[in-house]
């Protein structure tokens, strides 16, 4: 692909309420995932692996965690002489005063339009971060070029039973064309339906068309999300629907976040996501090797570097720099960077955010369908401080 022919917008303005407390101080896109990644690494890696060098990341608020993670974009090879990484903060209108909001009418999409115009790209792809996968965007572009509709969308074929009412699906014609993006709850799927086209919130179109859509929205005075505009475009123009067949996880609430982490402990899923020809990039860090002490047991689990493991870990995702003391038992857990687990503590079906300290001889227990979540930076030393997930 010729350099600069495609630009990408990774949109971090996504529903986050159901992921609290993990999303209290970060957008969904910087949720830690899989031992050393952030959700945003997956779409960003897809973009990089397709040779796309014009990338805009839109964030709901200040985007501190986003800026800290991406910095110059060097770790994704985006500190290039042409194009590069652009961040566009403060897109969450709930945080904007009425006066400020009034000035945004007819200008809400100005930054995005400017980015697209300056990219001089032929195509643009809009992606979200709550759909974890490893998609071949070059194949998507080829698919788009071979078909007539102005927009191409992406779906994963899933069992309708796995959908929540708020998950969106593509309505497909017999010929596989998407005519609308609708919430599963309103889709009136027949009870006998075996497959539904789960929408992956990826939209590809010509940059000229995308600029038109945004300028039109400005003219109307719209203040709606980019994703909403994309869904409208699908209804208006109909869309080609590209089926993604790789590992997929949709993260929309705590249970699905937890389940997605557990899913990559399956070796086939792990290999599909991380060992394809398309690598997953993330911010590199200089951690020391992880030390497994005498008497430790670490099984069926992932671990980042910088760890110190003395206890027992089974079927868990352990991020970088985690300390697990002697005699502790960790099972079916997600433990994020910098957390320390005291000696003799038992943990099962739990998600522990970054830099948490759990004292010795405590019991933290959630349920497989409803993990107990310990939010960032908490220090818990008494059993009474443990709030159960029930």
């Amino acid at each position: 692909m010729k350099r600069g022919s495609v630009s990408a917008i990774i949109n971090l303005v996504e529903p986050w309420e159901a992921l609290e407390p993990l999303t209290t101080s970060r957008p969904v896109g910087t949720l830690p995932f899989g031992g050393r990644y952030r959700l945003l690494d997956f779409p960003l890696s897809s973009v990089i692996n397709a040779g796309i060098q014009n990338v805009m990341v839109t964030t709901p608020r200040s985007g501190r965690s986003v800026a800290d993670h991406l910095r110059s974009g060097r770790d994704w090879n985006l500190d290039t002489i042409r194009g590069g990484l652009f961040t566009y903060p403060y897109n969450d209108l709930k945080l904007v005063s009425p006066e400020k909001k009034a000035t945004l009418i007819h200008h809400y999409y100005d930054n995005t339009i400017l980015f697209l115009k300056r990219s001089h790209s032929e195509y643009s792809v809009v992606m979200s971060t709550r759909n974890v996968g490893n998609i071949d965007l070059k194949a998507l572009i080829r698919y788009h070029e071979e078909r007539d509709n102005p927009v191409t969308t992406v779906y994963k074929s899933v069992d309708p039973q796995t959908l929540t009412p708020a998950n969106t699906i593509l309505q497909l014609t017999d010929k596989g064309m998407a005519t609308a993006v609708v919430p599963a709850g309103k889709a009136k799927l027949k009870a006998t339906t075996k497959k539904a086209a789960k929408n992956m919130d990826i939209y590809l179109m010509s940059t000229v068309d995308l600029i038109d859509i945004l300028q039109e929205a400005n003219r109307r005075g719209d203040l709606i999300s980019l994703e909403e505009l994309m869904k409208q475009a699908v209804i208006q123009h109909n869309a080609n629907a590209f089926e993604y067949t790789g590992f997929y996880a949709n993260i929309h609430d705590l249970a699905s976040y937890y389940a997605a982490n557990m899913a990559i402990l399956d070796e086939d899923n792990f290999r599909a996501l991380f060992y394809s020809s398309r690598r997953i990039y993330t911010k590199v860090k200089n951690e020391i090797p992880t030390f497994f002490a005498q008497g430790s047991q670490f099984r069926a689990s992932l671990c980042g570097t910088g760890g110190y493991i003395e206890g027992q870990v089974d079927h868990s995702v352990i991020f970088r720099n985690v300390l697990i003391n002697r005699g502790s038992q960790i099972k079916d857990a997600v433990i994020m960077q910098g957390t320390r687990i005291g000696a003799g503590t038992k943990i099962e079906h739990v998600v522990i955010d970054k830099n948490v300290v759990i004292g010795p001889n405590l019991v933290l227990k959630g349920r497989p369908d409803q993990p107990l979540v310990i939010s960032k930076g908490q220090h818990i030393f008494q059993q009474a401080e443990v709030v159960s997930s029930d």
Partner: protein
Amino acid sequence: MNNEMLGIILAGGQGTRLGKLTKDTAKPAVPFGGRYRIIDFTLSNCANSGVNTVGVITQYQPLELNAHIGNGASWGLDDLNGGVTVLQPYSSTEGEKFFEGTAHAIYQNIEYIDQQNPKYLLVLSGDHIYKMDYDAMLAYHKAKKASLTVGVIPVTKQEARRFGMMNTDETDRIIEFEEKPEHPKSDKASMGIYIFNWPTLRDYLVKSYATDKSLEDFGKNVIPSYLAHNESVYAYAFKGYWRDVGTIQSLWQANMEFLSPHNRLNIGDRNWRIYSKAQVLPPMFLTDTSQVNNSMIVDSCYVAGEVDHSILSQRVSVGMGSRVVDSMVMPGATIGKNVVIDHALIGEEAVIGDDAIVQGTPTEIAVVGYNEVVGVQQP
């Protein structure tokens, strides 16, 4: 000149005593401690000491080393006013700039050093494992108003026979130098770390190469010549952990020491971090049949067998039923099923077939070379 002191890392030696491991690569590029290469320690020391301009002199098999160092960004040495320059021999009207000894290597790169125009020249080896503040050594060099300061480490009488030994007076001024003495008079062994006043060293080298070309090696020639000419040469005593990893045995030993949480090197100290070229790799995956004790493992390892008191580097896989004991496995090595690896160094990308046995002893470490294939039946 933007930096007072220029660092030069001598990374051109063949490292013949590392046998198979340096057949196709330079010694400083040999992996160490799971996620490092030997030169990372010296490069990180430079970065942490504020020595922001560093020339790395290469000669023997430099490709892997070049790829590792890149533009120096991994060490934060992609400085606007300095940075890392890999110096390879080149040809000129005076002939080709290959070199024989350590001092000759500096002479052959005189143009680069002149370009930097430093006041002080810090000369380092690329094959030592240690953490050292070169800025503190420079302060000592200035305080002593020395012409040359030599980094020294205390050694036993036994060890002294392998080193260049510095005999000093009560002010730590070096009065005599003995190469590998049978009966050492002091315990101060040269670490091969020098701070020179560059203009003085430059004069010595230029004169020598215009006449008898005698100043080939720092230990054998330059220090004796400095002492003979009554230059002020001082010994700077380093008290920290320091290992020369120039032999199979010492490389294995230093790796085993690295495994100990109580190792004096203190690799986890965040105030003096050791950086390496960071690679983007998935996290390590240990299966439900793994058994890991007293070991260090890094990104992208896959372990289904037993690992005991060993180090696995990036992308190493250990198959089911295999046992890796008292060993260091370098990046990308694949260990099949039901393999025994005991007291061994396994080279990069080596392949150990199912049921193979690689058995060394504490005094005779087994070595499998880079890309070597052991115990795989050829169809």
